[in-house]
């Protein structure tokens, strides 16, 4: 399971395919304070990324992978 949902944290791991987008959106709507753990994120499908960009939930851990962190992290720092 690329996204596992805990009480207040959704953990995104590996490749998160398009199928995950809808559930992630639903979870975030249900948990407005929900946080994302992106530590082991490999590749989010564009649709998944979009959800993150639109809702900008709090992130508990940014990706370890430097390549991903390099473009993902700035999305939280700038006006999207």
């Amino acid at each position, binding site marked *: 399971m690329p996204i596992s949902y805990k009480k207040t944290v959704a953990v995104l791991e590996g490749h998160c*395919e398009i199928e995950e987008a809808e559930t992630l959106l639903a979870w975030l709507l249900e948990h407005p304070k929900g946080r994302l753990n992106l530590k082991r994120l490999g590749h989010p499908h*564009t649709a998944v990324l*979009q959800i993150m960009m639109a809702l900008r939930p709090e992130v508990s851990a940014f990706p370890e992978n430097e390549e991903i962190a390099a473009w993902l992290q700035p999305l939280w720092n700038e006006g999207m």
Partner: protein
Amino acid sequence: MDPMLEAFISESRDNLETAGRCFLELEKCSGDEGLLNDLFRSVHTIKGSSGLFDIPVFTKVVHAAEDVLDSVRSGELLMTPEHIDMFLDTMDQVSVWLDDLESTGSLGDGAEARSQVLVQDLRALLSAPPTVGSDPNVTEPEDLSQPQDAPDTGGRLCTPPGWLAAMPDKLRLALYARTGGESLDILAIEYTPDSQCFFSGEDPLHIVRTLPGMVWFHIQARDSWLEPVEMDPYQCNLVFHAVAAGTDNEIRHHLRYVNEWVHVMLLAPDQLVVPEGEFGDSEPFETFIEESTQLIEEGGWRRLRQRIHPLLEVSEPGFLQTSVLHWMETLLKEDEPNQALLESLLETLRSGVFQWPEEMFDPVTQDNTPSLVEDGTSVSMHELDEPRLAAVRQALVVQRHILSMPCSYELLAGRIASVAKVVKNLLAASESHPAGLDAAIETALDEKSPEPLVAFVDDLLSAMKPDGKKPASGPEDKPMQREEVRHQDVSGQQVGGSDGEICPRMGAMPKQMSTSAGEPPARSKTLRVDQQRIDALMDLVGELVVAKNAMPFLARRAENDFGIRLLAKEIKAQYAVINRLAEELQGAVMQIRMIPVSSVFQRFPRLVRDLSRKLGKQIRLVLEGEETEADKNVVENLADPLIHLVRNSLDHGLETAQERESAGKPAEGTIILRAISHDDQVIIEVVDNGRGIDPEVIKRKAYGKGVIDEQRLDTITDHEALQLIFAAGFSTAEEVSDLSGRGVGMDVVRSVVMQAGGRVSVESKKGEGTTIRLSLPLSMAVTRVMMVEVAGQCYGVAMENIVETVRVPTTDIQRIKHNEAVVLRDKIIPLFYLSKLLNLKVNTASSGEVAILLMKVAGQEVGLVIDEFHEGLDIIQKPLEGVLVHYPWYAGAALLGDGRVLLVLNIRELLSCR
């Protein structure tokens, strides 16, 4: 009279006659493509030849006529009797002009006015709304993509996009430094995916992340985000901006499937210069500004550099001034710094505002690195002082471009050879003889890969750069794009277990692994390894496999040459162990690279569901064999062609529910996506039960498009005709629609599959459906062959073709007419003598028994008579080189453990040319 003009007049009269006859016949049978082609060609020839003379008035008229005919030929315009009248009038006028030319040498009075009227009338036909009763959106998508591409050609001369400033200064500085040492195309890419793109299986982020030479990218929302509750997760609302550095071609190739949504701009290194930061206190810089103005004017670069250095040490990061100084420092590393740009930067120190010098976008100063993008078509030598040298350079650029184009295997050798020849001639003409050309050519031909030549030409080109840029200090490390190979070690699924059993490649794995309820979730331990390391491992395994083949020879020598039978036995026993280990090792390494095709297949259910809704069709998708595994590269290569094929089926293959019902078929159409592993191939089939392809239509189209000639048209079989849909340039207007008409034809599918070493074929029955089959190598496997001996020579025969080996008494051989055959298990097996097939001396010494290799060739069992069987061997088969390339009955060659070369036979070819 000038003999050439004379020839032109007489040739054009002939062509006019042909044209006139064609017009009249067309009136009778308007759709005849052969006639239209003859007609077009005759007018085309008149136009082409007239261009050689100074009669532009004449040329314009014929040109207009040609354009109209072209659109008739492509089906955009329907020829009416009125059109034909007009054409005949035009031809009459042309004929009169020819007479005038003959008698007076010029076109006579009033020609200009008459020409204008005719051109206007002819062109009016083109602007009229399409008269063909076809779907109005038929040609639309491709046409739309044209203007989008158009601005690219002038890329370099445009002002760089504003978003470039968002790229961190550091990255731009580093990229700029790289341009000194490498020949790099820097491309600014703006990618605005279609909002519906997810439905066609696209993952724009993935496309951007995997851009060759990716340096930096940035993502933005296209429109401001809706309230979360209203958000549609399946609408793409993003814009990607990216900067990539590599070769223009490679980058464009990567984007070929989305080119409608992409705007690419080629950047000059200087366009990267955008200082950034907060404008700080300018007081500390006043002296510097004063002194530098003078230095820049005089070209005192060294002294300027010396001033910048200490200043930079005390400047703090984050300020505009600091950034400006960094840029100045970088620009000054050039042999001939861009003076205007330095002045602009200095101005920024003064005012806090940066503006590019105006002359930077003037074509003359920009045109210092010719590139294909920049001057678009073919060859031109404008505004270069040394025309000959420039021509050499331009021709080299073209050869480099050719090498980077996709190529079918059968054309590859020719492409390499001809480009090599051209490069050689170019160098000879420019009297330079750089070392390494012959070596590069040789390796390229040996390896059947253009890469060595590409490298050579690149070196040449960078050495020939007109501005003589020297490589800068150390080239930066390229941003490493780590390819991940995942090795999932999930409960019980292991690679090469201790009992020596290697996991089966397909089928046996329990599929519900990840979904099985009740069990604790399988923890997947993932190890990320650089793909290069695995490739290196694979190479080593390959060498090991070859090295172990030496042991049987060693055993034989021990026995025969040294007479130590016991040692021979022991070596053989050891060999068996090493052999097994090598095989396991090989399997294990390949297993690491294997991933199931489901990773590609899983995109399709959604794609099919959404597209069929959009199309108003009822379609069921069936996935079969998703667990089939293949090498990671192979699976990844599959994605794009498969999407195209499925779209094609949805779009053209399957009918609407009504159409189906009226044809007596169930309303719901089916698409089966099936993966099968078959020997060393993975076969992917896209099967639909739609309307099928009519081979007659294909034949006609292919002929009309010049894909096949008349002779071929008569002899071509239906099956062969179907395969023509993969021919380059074959896509019928009827096949273009808004879903798959993206300028990507079946030829692209074919070339992608061929590049991956695979094949593609199509089967179709009109009214019943179409099956497209892709066969791809499972991996770069080691081939198992059997050694056979004939006339004292050993050859290899691929094990997969061999059914069994038998010996039969010569008396069992029966003669049927001129052929010999033998009956085995109630089947008549035709016999062929390998010695005869290979034109070798026939072994006459009859032992009363013959050795027969029973083989399955092209679905038929045949017996190959040989002198002796030998052992089976694992070999790494290499393609043939040198003169042997021309003998198709050799599949390849391999090095044996004792250093001999074993030729591997292609039995199928051998039998077909007997």
